[in-house]
């Protein structure tokens, strides 16, 4: 693969340094669905151009953390885990709270949210619920990526970067005729050593390819095709055991790896009639990935998990808008539909230590010693789980924007129908003996087969008012609703099977425990959609080189989806609708870019708490929501020095988030931590050379909390990184 990339670099042309935004018009062009320009949206918006992305070293969505105020995507584990938190919303599993669109194509699967990009010309983040136009999973906001287009006046570009951990990142992007093509490859040896194996546990090799074709086939018709391919081969998670208030080094014995192939093929058709503009956006999406995990993350052979899935989906959106952009009323009506099938193979393999500690110790603790005791002779005990999960959604939406001179009033509503079904086919197999009574092992196979399904209809209204107080200042208020789709807990099935096996074995023996092995059943594995109402006021200022924005919001969340670990020595985890919560917060952004100087500040404050949450054992009402940072902060500043005909760019940044609570009790906290970065670049006419540093402060904060069979684990910040790189504009 490395050779292939190097050959492509040597033989291709490349794009220009800052030219991607150099030709941007005054009115920002994005891939958003809204009928008005970003500047006229009654919503909190973060808009990041290519030069800003480059200066901040942002080449993956999770590096937008804190740059977008309130956005927190912890950088840990494999690219499977795009854990996204925004405005108090979010959870580590299942559906995201943020919609992701690449050139207007929706990315359905959260497992593909984390990828390297090249040739991204603009990143736009709408914050707050955007359910009316974007539907499911956009209750926290929508991240829209605009990629290099064949109509851009950009030069071919090649990037090469090398840094510690033997990290190599190369990329190229160019335009040929009606095609734009970009590709990137990244390798790193890894940052964390698994001391048990004495090897790095988180190596990464990833390749991303993006091809866009765009053509006006007729005076009124424009078509485009966007193909995105991502391939990665990665190591495992770098979790260290937390014991006695000390974080141990990463040390586990079983395999940890993640392989992924993701293909998104999108097609857009735009017709501009005299009265009506019609847009058709359709896509086919394929995901094939395979994760293997030492689920106990210890040196013992307790249990492992594999999660291998093949997922295919098709989306279709049809939108009609009024052609006359100067009309007072700008209506938009659309129909959206998708169907997705996910075939998931997720076996859990209990190994010898797991059979002893999780199964036998638990079972024998219930049995009087004078009666006998249970033994299992198997070296490994498989709990196989096959799932076929179908999800389908159809939505009808309408939004009208009334442009009344200084006032813009937007009203919209969407009706979403979503259905889902899960076929599960699970089997646990073991050989047991009740000693001293039984003299031979007995095979016990416990099947668990069935189907569960759900259907939901959502109404998602929106009303907003924007007032252009002056040419420079706008004020807005919005009330909107969003929802995050429900789903099925697949990761709890090993728990269900484990308990079912124990109960079946006991019945087979004719032994009845006063306390049965209790677990949820498949009927309880469905969780409902989460809803959020958002009330927001905000203001924006654009004056010369100064731009600023501030918003304050109140969000009321019902059916909050939270990941919980079942009590005791359970092995699974599951999503539950934990009750109600509310978030109060404020987000601000300030940019000042006079001539060669540039500065940017993003700051957020969020107080997100349970209004009511009782898990059956404890009442957590009033406690802060776990994993949600109270503050995010990003401060960056830079200056371009002229040296003859060349430029010396010096940029520095501080990036921080926290404090966090790691669980519902509010007793485990991570303080606010800040990391420093910098970039020094010597820019010549056709190329530049730079040095970039990340986490220069060497901050070793804990980035994520994980619990397994009663043990607590943390992932930590990646170490100090120094990269040296060069960019050629051909």
């Amino acid at each position, binding site marked *: 693969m490395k050779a292939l990339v190097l050959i492509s670099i040597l033989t291709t042309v490349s794009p220009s340094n800052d030219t991607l935004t150099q030709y941007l018009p005054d009115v920002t062009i994005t891939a958003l669905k809204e009928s008005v320009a970003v500047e006229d949206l009654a919503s909190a918006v973060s808009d990041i151009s290519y030069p800003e992305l480059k200066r901040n070293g942002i080449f993956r969505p999770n590096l937008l953390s804190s740059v977008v105020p309130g956005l927190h995507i912890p950088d840990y584990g494999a690219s499977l885990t795009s854990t996204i938190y925004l405005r108090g919303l979010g959870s580590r599993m299942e559906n995201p709270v943020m919609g992701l669109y690449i050139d207007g194509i929706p990315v359905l699967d959260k497992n593909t949210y984390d990828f390297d990009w090249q040739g991204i010309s603009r990143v736009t983040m709408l914050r707050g619920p955007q359910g009316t136009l974007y539907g499911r999973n956009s209750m926290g906001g929508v991240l829209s990526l605009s990629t290099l287009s064949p109509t851009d006046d950009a030069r071919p570009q090649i990037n090469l970067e090398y840094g510690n951990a033997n990290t190599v990142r190369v990329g190229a992007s160019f335009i040929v005729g009606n095609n734009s093509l970009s590709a990137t490859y990244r390798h790193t040896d890894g940052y964390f050593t698994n001391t048990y194996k004495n090897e790095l546990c988180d190596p990464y090799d990833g390749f991303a390819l993006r091809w866009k074709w765009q053509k006006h086939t007729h005076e009124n018709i424009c078509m485009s095709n966007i193909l995105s391919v991502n391939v990665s081969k990665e190591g495992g998670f770098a979790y260290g055991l937390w014991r006695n208030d000390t974080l141990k080094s990463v040390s586990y014995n079983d395999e940890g790896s993640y392989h992924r192939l993701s293909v998104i093929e999108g097609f857009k058709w735009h017709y501009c009639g005299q009265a009506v503009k019609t847009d058709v956006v359709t896509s086919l999406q394929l995901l094939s990935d395979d994760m293997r995990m030492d689920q106990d993350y210890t040196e013992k052979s307790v249990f492992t998990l594999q999660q291998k899935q093949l997922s295919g989906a098709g989306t279709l959106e049809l939108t009609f808008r009024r052609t006359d952009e100067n009309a007072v009323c700008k209506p938009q009506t659309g129909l959206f539909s998708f169907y997705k099938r996910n075939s998931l193979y997720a076996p859990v393999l209990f190994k010898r230590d797991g059979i002893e500690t999780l199964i036998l110790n638990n079972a024998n603790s219930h049995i009087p010693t004078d*009666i*006998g005791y249970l033994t299992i002779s198997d070296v490994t005990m498989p709990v196989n789980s096959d799932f076929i999960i179908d999800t389908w959604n159809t939505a009808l939406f309408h939004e009208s924007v009334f442009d009344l001179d200084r006032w813009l009033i937007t009203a919209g509503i969407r009706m979403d129908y979503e259905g889902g079904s899960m076929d599960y086919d699970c089997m646990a197999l073991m050989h047991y003996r009740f000693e001293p009574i039984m003299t031979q092992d007995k095979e016990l196979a416990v099947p668990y087969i069935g189907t569960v399904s759900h259907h939901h209809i959502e109404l998602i209204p929106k009303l907003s008012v924007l007032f252009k107080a002056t040419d420079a200042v706008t004020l807005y208020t919005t009330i909107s609703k969003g929802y995050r789709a429900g789903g099925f807990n697949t990761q709890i099935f090993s728990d269900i099977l484990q308990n079912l096996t124990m109960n079946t074995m006991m019945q087979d023996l004719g*032994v009845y425990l006063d306390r049965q092995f209790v677990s949820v059943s498949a009927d309880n594995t469905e969780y409902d959609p989460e809803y959020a109402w958002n009330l927001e006021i905000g203001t924006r200022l654009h004056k010369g080189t100064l731009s600023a924005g501030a918003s304050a919001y109140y969000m009321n969340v019902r059916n909050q989806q939270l990941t919980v670990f079942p009590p005791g020595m359970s092995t699974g985890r599951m999503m539950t609708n934990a009750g109600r919560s509310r978030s109060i917060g404020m987000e601000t952004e300030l940019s000042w870019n006079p001539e060669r100087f540039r500065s940017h500040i993003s700051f957020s404050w969020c107080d997100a708490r349970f209004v009511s949450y009782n898990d059956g054992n404890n009442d957590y009402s009033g406690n802060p929501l776990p994993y949600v940072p109270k503050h995010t902060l990003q401060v960056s500043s830079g200056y371009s020095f002229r040296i003859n005909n060349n430029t010396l760019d010096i940029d520095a940044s501080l990036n921080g988030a926290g404090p966090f609570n790691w669980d519902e009790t509010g007793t485990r906290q991570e303080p606010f931590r800040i990391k420093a970065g910098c970039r020094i670049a010597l820019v010549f006419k056709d190329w530049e050379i730079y040095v970039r540093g990340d986490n220069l402060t060497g901050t070793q904060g804990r980035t994520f909390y994980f619990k397994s069979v009663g043990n607590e684990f943390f992932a930590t910040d990646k170490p100090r990184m120094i990269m040296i790189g060069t960019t050629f504009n051909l």
Partner: protein
Amino acid sequence: MKKTIYLLLAFAVVLAGCDKSEKENEEPVNVLKSTDYSGTLTVNASSGAFDTENVKVSYIATEKADSASIIMYQVKFSPRMPVSLDVTVPGIVVKKTAKGAILTCDSIVPLAMGGEFPNYTVKGFEGEIIDDDLTFSLNFGSTPTSYQGKAQ
């Protein structure tokens, strides 16, 4: 004519009655067939006697009906026992009587938890089946136990 009909009917009733009583004598109801019972199990544990209501017992007759097994479901031999067990007493000798059967056995190792359970060897098993009633007493090891149940 009416008198003749009445006499014939009476004769038929008497005949029918005789036939039924003869069948009862040949094979009393529920005695030789496998039957489930529900009743009270009394265990005279060292800590004192305790009763368990609604205990299901299955009487499993052999093909010749001269012996049987009794399965007691979910029984405890101590109120503090954290588990209950299915216990099978095999090899019970069955002697038919006019109204049912007498059940006896001694020094039989019961079956439980997938095998033989010698700690609770059955001694002095004495039982009786009369019509729908099953009663028996036995010592499970050193624990005197008795049962009274009705056919379900």
